[in-house]
Every structure is written in structure tokens, then in C-alpha cells.
């Protein structure tokens, strides 16, 4: 009964999305608060219905109801409860339901909380959100329904891919989808602004919190996915330029560009056309990601293998939704006022440079992702575009961006002066150069580009703090005055400082880890050891330790430095009988912010006939910073979001209290 109730609730959500669209359009056309309000009510009710549908699916997974085809294909009764819950979004159908839940959730927040928005704009935005919801819910109900039943249910399910049975991956999709789909509100506000013909400073302020929230969620989602790949796949890397990783990275880059462009539009009324273009592009890239992951055109550890028919349907949704929005843009853009003028040296110019670089970077990623697919479709020849391509195209663009980042906040609006900005950045420059030279001289092997990367990282971190220091007049005013200014600094400014510093932290970790990581692999019998840099890994023994739904070989490895044991590591190799798959469970020993990373490979027969195991060890210096950096960036985004100026309806509440 609960399963069928979920199926009904899903269908009701689809109908409510249609009602939301119809009532909101009618409300806007007739300027009727009654009808527009009812449209908002449909958005709220639609989210409620979908939340119930989602709960029903989770219940089916938890109780191992294999009469539901999706449960039978993706779960197993012996799986721990957490992974049975997470399996609800581990498959294509279930993840579409999660996508729709996030979509209607954001739509409900827009409908319920957007009291600051003018009625015309809000009604149109709620209608657009309703159209997007209708399209995706119709696709889910008719082509990817997670509640399809089996006449003759199997006794046991086929289980979820064991690689996905992981705590990080259980929470990674909800964050990622919140980011992807959060951009739908930005998209809806963009389309609404084009329809209403009003893209101004106020509109940019309304868009910013949504973009900020979606971008922060996306940052956390991507970082979690990267962390999962780092420790679950056992390859020792954290980013592989996999097309599916790129699919999530592109909306992130566009979202970052949008956040900066929207500031220019809000503060100066400039770049309105460009800002709305980015607002449309951010969600279009999210939809492109959904298509790439689900169409079956990609084979990846991250992709859902789905048949081409449903892929074509998704492509149709992408083309119709994004195509009509960009057609509207092409029609309306010429009539947009260009906005305020600014000098070549100004904060606006710095932000424009930021946008050019981020957009160019997005295009390089897009080309690197789509070109192999297009070439294979046209010529049938499979090629792969890997790290060398991205190192030659994406990395230089990002390096230039990193050089420019600290300048932006130090320049005045409209007409800036470079000299004071340079003066404020002298400490960052000196420390950056010193760090780069120190790396070049002290670290072996000597690596010029990586040393340059370290210099850039220090430049970014210190440069971000320099801006805050200048605002509070650190060392230029009495301490009490600086403290007073520090307390008065808006949270938005703190958020920007943290986000820029977080980028520096990430660059530091990424450069260090990539350039100076060490790796060694050897077959070991118990008692033998492997050397990784300064570390000695001694294999004590390998035991069979079975888990709830797997059989495992678990090694006990002693990690020693200078003869002293620093860590006891237990890497494992698991065999999941339900799916017949084997996975590696990496053991990581954190030493300050670096990782000693050990993988247990397959068992082999040694020279004397005794079993030996392939053990791979990695020393990943400063690896923690790779994941901490995006964490700091996301924190910056969330702190900005709490800035009173960005909160929706803040002014109304203040007035109400007065």
C-alpha cells in the first residue's frame, strides 16, 4: 500500500506542477493575487507530495520490497540500513526522484519565501519553475518511474554497485543535486526577468542568494565526490577529468562567474545581459550533466548506464528548455540597457576579467568533454581527452585568474587605482615569491611549475587576507579602531575572503600533492616490507574478516618512520557475492595535513608457493588541503548567505518588527 501511495503521490506532484504553471501564468496575465497565490500553493503542495513519494521509495528500500523493480535491481536484504536508504538514489530512477525532490523543494522555497520579489517577476518565475518541474516529473513518471512493480518478485535483490556503498557517496548526491537544481531557480528568475523586461540591480540582488546557495551546495557535492573517488577507487588520485566529473564542474564554473557578474549588476547596474546569460547557462549546464550521466553515451564509474531512448528524451528536455530560454534571450537581449560605465582599471573590470577567464575555462572543459563523444559519433573512432589537454588549456587560464583574484576586492568601483592595490598586496607578493623559491630550492625533485603553483597559492591566501586587513585598517589605525571595523565588516565580505582563501588552500594542496606525491608497489608476504619515501610499510598478516554483505581480506600493516610505528593500517579487499564484484578499501593514515595511503591488491602465489599480496603505498603530501579548500570556499558561500543584505524578505521583517 505504501509503494502504491508513493506512486500516486508522484503522479499528484506532476499534476500539481502543471497546476502551478497554469495558475501562475493566469495570475500574472490577469494580475490576480488570488491565482498567483494559488500557483504558489500548488508549488508547496507539489513538494509535499514528492516528499511523501520519496519517503515511500526509501521505505520500500529499507524493507527490501523486491516487488518494486527498482529495489530488486539495486538493493539486497543483507546490505546495511544506511546503504539501503542511500540505494534509493543510487539508481537512475531513484536519483531522478531525488532530482525532482530538490527541484520542487527549491520551487517551494521560491514560492513560500520569496516575499521580497515583485509580484510580476515572482509569478513568472514560479510559472517557469512549474514548467521545469512538469517536464522532469513527466519524464520520471512516464519514462523512469521508480515505483514500477514486478509481477513475480525475486527472493533477493541484485544489490547496489559496492563502490556506491560508502558513507561519502550516500550524502554526495543530495548535495550535488541541491547544487544542480538550485540553479533552476536562478534560471527561472532569469527567464522571468527576460519576460518581464527588467534586469536591473534589484533583480541581481534577488538572484544572488539563490546562486550562492546552489554554488555552495555544488562545491560541497563535488568535493565529496572527489573525496570518494580518492579513497574508494584506490587509484591514489582525486580528479581524473572524467566526463561525469566535468559535467558537475561546468555548472560550478559558470555559477562562480555568475556570482561575480551579479555583484557588478547589483552594485553598478552594469552587465545585465551577461548576468542573465550566465543565469540561463548555469542550469543548462546542470541539465547537460544530467543528460551525459544518464544517456548511456558515457561509460564511467560515476555514470548511470541507461538506454539511449531515455537519453534522447533527456536531450529533448535539455534542448527544449535551454533552447527556448536562449531564444528568448536572443530576442530580448538587444533591448537591455547597457548599465553603468566603468574605467579599465576598476572593480568592474576585474570582475569582467574574472568572468572572461571562468567562461573560457568552462569552454575548454566543455570541448574536452564533448569532443571525444562527437568524434566517436561521427567517425566511430574512440579517442580520449585526458589530463595533458586540460593541463595545457584549463590550468593556464586558472593560473591567470589566481593572479588577478586578490586585486578585485581592492579596487574601487567605477574608477580604481592600481597603486594602492599593489601596495596592499606587497606582503602577499613577497610571501608568495619566497614560498615559490623555497619550494624550488628545498624540495626534490625540483619542479618549477609546481613551485610557481605554491607561490600562487600563498599569493591567493595572503592576498585575500590583505583585503580584509585593508578594510579594517590593520596597523594603520589604533587597535581599538581596527577591532571596531572588524566587528562591523559585513558577512558578505568575510564570505568573499574565505572563498578566495579557500581557493588558495586548494591550489596549495593540489600543486603539492600532484608534484611531490610518492608511490611504490610490491608483492609482500607477511613479515616483508615496502618503502614509500621515508615510510616503511610492514605487512604483518592478512586475515579473512567477513562483513554483513561481503567477504573481506584485511591486511594489518604497520607504517613506520625512522623505525617507529606511526600508524596501524588495515586496507582491505572486499568481495560482494551478491553482485560478484570486488572492491578495494583504502587505508589512510593522516599525518598533519598529509596522507599515507595504502591499498591492498590481489593475492598471488609467491615463488615458494606461499600466498603474497600486492601492496601499493602512496605518500600524498598536503592532500587534506585539496578537500579542505573547497570546504572553506563553501563555508564562505554560506557565511555570505547569512549576510542580512542577501536574506530574502529581510527588509520586510525588519519593518514588521519596527
Amino acid at each position, binding site marked *: 500500500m*505504501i509503494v502504491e501511495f508513493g506512486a500516486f*503521490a508522484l503522479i499528484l506532484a506532476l499534476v500539481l506542477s502543471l497546476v502551478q504553471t497554469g495558475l501562475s501564468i493566469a495570475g500574472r496575465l490577469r494580475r490576480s*493575487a*488570488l491565482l498567483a*497565490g494559488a500557483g504558489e500553493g500548488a508549488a508547496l503542495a507539489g513538494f509535499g507530495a514528492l516528499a511523501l513519494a520519496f519517503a515511500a521509495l526509501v521505505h520500500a528500500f529499507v524493507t527490501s520490497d523486491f516487488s518494486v523493480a527498482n529495489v530488486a535491481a539495486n538493493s539486497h536484504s543483507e546490505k546495511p540500513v544506511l546503504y539501503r536508504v542511500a540505494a534509493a538514489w543510487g539508481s537512475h530512477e531513484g536519483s531522478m526522484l531525488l532530482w525532482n525532490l530538490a527541484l520542487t523543494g527549491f520551487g517551494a522555497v521560491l514560492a513560500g519565501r520569496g516575499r521580497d520579489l515583485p509580484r510580476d517577476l515572482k509569478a513568472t518565475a514560479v510559472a517557469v519553475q512549474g514548467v521545469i518541474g512538469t517536464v522532469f516529473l513527466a519524464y520520471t513518471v512516464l519514462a523512469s518511474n521508480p515505483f514500477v512493480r514486478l509481477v513475480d518478485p525475486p527472493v533477493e535483490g541484485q544489490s547496489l554497485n559496492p563502490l556506491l556503498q560508502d558513507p561519502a557517496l550516500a550524502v554526495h548526491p543530495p548535495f550535488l543535486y541541491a547544487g544542480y537544481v538550485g540553479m533552476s531557480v536562478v534560471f527561472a528568475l532569469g527567464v522571468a526577468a527576460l519576460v518581464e523586461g527588467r534586469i536591473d540591480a*534589484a533583480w541581481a*540582488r*534577488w538572484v544572488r542568494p539563490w546562486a550562492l546557495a546552489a554554488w555552495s551546495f555544488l562545491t560541497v557535492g563535488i568535493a565529496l565526490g572527489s573525496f570518494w573517488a580518492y579513497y574508494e577507487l584506490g587509484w591514489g588520485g582525486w580528479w581524473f577529468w572524467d566526463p561525469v566529473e566535468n559535467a558537475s564542474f561546468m555548472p560550478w564554473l559558470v555559477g562562480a562567474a555568475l556570482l561575480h557578474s551579479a555583484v557588478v549588476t547589483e552594485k553598478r547596474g552594469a552587465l545585465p545581459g551577461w548576468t542573465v546569460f550566465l543565469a540561463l547557462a548555469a542550469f543548462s549546464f546542470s541539465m547537460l550533466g544530467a543528460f551525459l550521466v544518464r544517456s548511456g553515451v558515457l561509460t564511467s564509474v560515476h555514470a548511470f548506464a541507461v538506454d539511449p531512448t531515455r537519453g534522447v528524451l533527456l536531450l529533448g528536455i535539455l534542448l527544449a528548455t535551454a533552447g527556448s530560454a536562449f531564444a528568448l534571450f536572443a530576442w530580448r537581449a538587444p533591448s537591455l540597457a547597457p548599465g553603468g560605465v566603468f574605467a579599465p582599471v576598476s572593480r568592474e573590470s576585474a570582475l569582467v576579467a574574472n568572468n572572461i577567464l571562468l567562461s573560457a575555462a568552462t569552454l575548454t572543459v566543455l570541448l574536452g568533454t564533448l569532443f571525444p563523444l562527437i568524434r566517436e559519433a561521427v567517425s566511430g573512432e574512440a579517442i580520449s581527452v585526458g589530463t595533458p589537454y586540460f593541463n595545457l588549456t584549463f590550468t593556464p587560464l586558472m593560473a591567470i585568474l589566481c593572479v588577478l583574484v586578490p586585486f578585485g576586492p581592492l579596487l574601487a568601483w567605477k574608477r580604481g587605482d592600481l597603486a594602492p592595490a599593489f601596495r596592499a598586496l606587497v606582503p602577499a607578493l613577497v610571501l608568495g615569491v619566497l614560498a615559490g623559491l623555497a619550494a624550488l630550492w628545498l624540495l626534490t625533485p625540483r619542479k618549477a611549475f609546481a613551485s610557481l603553483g605554491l607561490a600562487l597559492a600563498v599569493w591567493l591566501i595572503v592576498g585575500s587576507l590583505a583585503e580584509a586587513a585593508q578594510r579594517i585598517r590593520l596597523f594603520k589605525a589604533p587597535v581599538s579602531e581596527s577591532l571596531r571595523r572588524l566587528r562591523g565588516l559585513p558577512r558578505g565580505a568575510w564570505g568573499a575572503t574565505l572563498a578566495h582563501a579557500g581557493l588558495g588552500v586548494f591550489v596549495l594542496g593540489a600543486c603539492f600533492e600532484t608534484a611531490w606525491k610518492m608511490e611504490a608497489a610490491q608483492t609482500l608476504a607477511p613479515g616483508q616490507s615496502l618503502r614509500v619515501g621515508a615510510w616503511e610499510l610492514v605487512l604483518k598478516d592478512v586475515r579473512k574478516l567477513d562483513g554483513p554483505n561481503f567477504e573481506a581480506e584485511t591486511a594489518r600493516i604497520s607504517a613506520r618512520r625512522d623505525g617507529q610505528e606511526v600508524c596501524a593500517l588495515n586496507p582491505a579487499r572486499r568481495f560482494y557475492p551478491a553482485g*560478484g564484484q570486488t572492491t578495494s578499501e583504502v587505508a589512510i593514515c593522516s599525518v598533519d595535513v598529509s596522507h599515507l595511503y595504502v591499498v591492498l591488491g590481489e593475492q598471488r602465489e609467491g615463488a615458494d608457493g606461499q600466498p603474497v599480496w600486492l601492496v601499493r603505498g602512496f605518500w600524498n603530501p598536503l592532500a587534506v588541503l585539496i578537500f579542505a579548500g573547497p570546504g572553506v570556499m563553501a563555508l564562505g558561500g554560506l557565511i555570505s548567505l547569512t549576510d542580512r543584505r542577501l536574506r530574502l524578505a529581510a527588509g520586510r521583517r525588519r519593518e514588521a518588527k519596527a
Partner: protein
Amino acid sequence: MAGMVVFWTAAGLLAVAAAAVILLRAARSAPQSGVEDPTLDVYRRQLAEIEDLADRGLMEPAEREAARAEAGRRLLTAADASKAGWTSPSAQRPVLLAAAGGAGLAALALYLALGQPGVPDQPLDRRIESWRSGRLTDLTPPQLAAVLRETLKVRPEVEGFRFLALAEAQSDNPAAASRALRQALVLAPQRADLWEMLGLSLLSRSGGDVTPEVREALAEAVRLDPGALAARFHLARGRAASGDVEGGVSDLRALGRALPAGDPRLADIDTAISEAAAPAAPVTEGPASDMIGRMVAGLAQRLQANPDDPEGWVRLVRSYAVLGDGPRRDAALEQARRRYASQPEILGQLARAAATEPMK
């Protein structure tokens, strides 16, 4: 029947709740008609913020003046453009009621077309309970295994695990059978028959190869019961396969002598002896070919553990073909063909791999 009543009541309540939310939200929105354009509020707040930042010394005077002038201009423009004019005509209320009620009815109609009303939930616990309460002889092996698994969770005992292992093996799930036997052996480590069963179960997982794991289990069975015939047979086979042909054949012959004349198992022993004594393929001599053989065996083992690897199967078939090991090549080819029966591209690759000339 009761389930259907509950379902339709819940579905009806949900549709009514959705309609109520629509109507309540409309009612709450109605009195707000004619309020001021919030754009003005945004610009007023922007002006106030500029003053606030300037007062706290966070904005230079020149910047303050420029920003104030710009925000002021925006406020004036917005005030000029501000258009209210939103109403809440009561004539639209019937439309609203129809939309709110119609949503539930439309969902109901669509559900009747797409859903399966009347199909009850089938949580595994409840299904197992119904199997348990019926006749065990009517159950299929997977159902019996599920019932036994649940029972053994509450009351673990040796014979139960042994039956579970048999049911799992019949369900074509040798991994689960091995697991059940290991659990039985925790409770009764001195039972030779269980060690022997475990060895045989592991043997079926390894495709007949006497791996160290298989050897360990069978050796334990023979240690506890020197008369464990199946264990002795496979240990002898394994000994011959690992290179000690003479020792393996000798063990097999000893086993044959222990059986009474006319025992049908003698035929198996003779076959094993002739297989063990057959001349080795030419490429399996020398250290390099030993290494190749180990690599191929490793690949075969990996594919048993993780069979969804078309490239691996093609490589395995080609390797056996190159090594001149016809029987293994054909067995691997057959296994891979069954697995990828619907993928002609892979079947073609497999056929080409099988046709590879043996290494001279």
C-alpha cells in the same frame, strides 16, 4: 480489501490536503494585493547600507557619494516605474476551486492508467513469514535459503547452516554457500564433512582449480577424517596440477585402491589420472612460460570473482588459445558467450580471440 480501503483513504486525504494548501495560500495572498513594489524597498535598503558602511568607516567618502547618487537614481527610476494594480477578484474563486479539486481528480485518473492499485507491499520479512508458515517442501531453493537465513539469525545451529549451504548451492549461489559453511564451522570446527563441503563449494567458485583456499579446507577435512574421499580426490588432483604429477597420480591410485571394485567413482579417478599424466603443453615449460601461466590463471581467477569484464574474457580466451590449451579456451569461450549472448560485437571479438594460432 482492508489495504485497499486504507490506500484510497490515504490517497484521498493527500489530494484534499494538496487542494487545501492551494486554497489557503491563495487566501493568504489575496489581502496583500496592492502592496508597494518591493524593488523600492531593495533600493532603500541599498541606500541605508551605503550610509551604514560609510559611518563605520568601511567606505571612502568619494565612493560613498558616488554610490549614494547611483542608488538614489535607481530609487527614483523604480518609483516612477512602480506599478501596483494587482487585485483579487472574487469572480475567480470558482476557477480556483476547480483547479484545486481538479488536481486530485486528474492525478487519480492518471494513477488508474499508470499505477497498480491493489498490489500490496511485499516487504521481505512478510514474504519470509508466509513461506515459513507454508510447507517447506513447496519452497524453491532461494526461498528455503531466505527462510533458513532468518531462522539462523535468531537460533544459529550447525545443521541449519549446513542446510542453508545446500539451499544456497542449489540457488546457484556458491559464495553464500561457502559463507554458510564457514558459519557452521565456527560452531563445529571438528566436523570433517563440513570442511569437505566447504572445500567443494570453494572449488565450484574457482572453476575447478584447487586454489590455496580450497586446499586448506580439504586438507583440514582429510586431517579430521582420513577417509574423506572427495577431499582426497581433489587434493590429489590439485597436487598433480601444481606440478607434482607423480605425487598426484600416486595419491589418485591409492584412492582407487581404497574403493571396492565396480565402484562408479573409479571411472572419475581414471579420468583424473589420465588428465594428470597427459603431457604438458609445450609453452608451459621454463620460467617465462610459468609466469605466463600464472598470469593467465590469475586472470581466470579475477574473472571468476568479477565476471563482468568483456575485455578480460577476450584476453583470457586469446591467452588459452596462444598457450594451446584447447579445453580451457573452449570452456572460457562458452562461459563468455553465454554472458554476452546479446552483444554481437563482443561475440565477434571472442571468436577472433579463440581463432588465434597457438604459440610454437
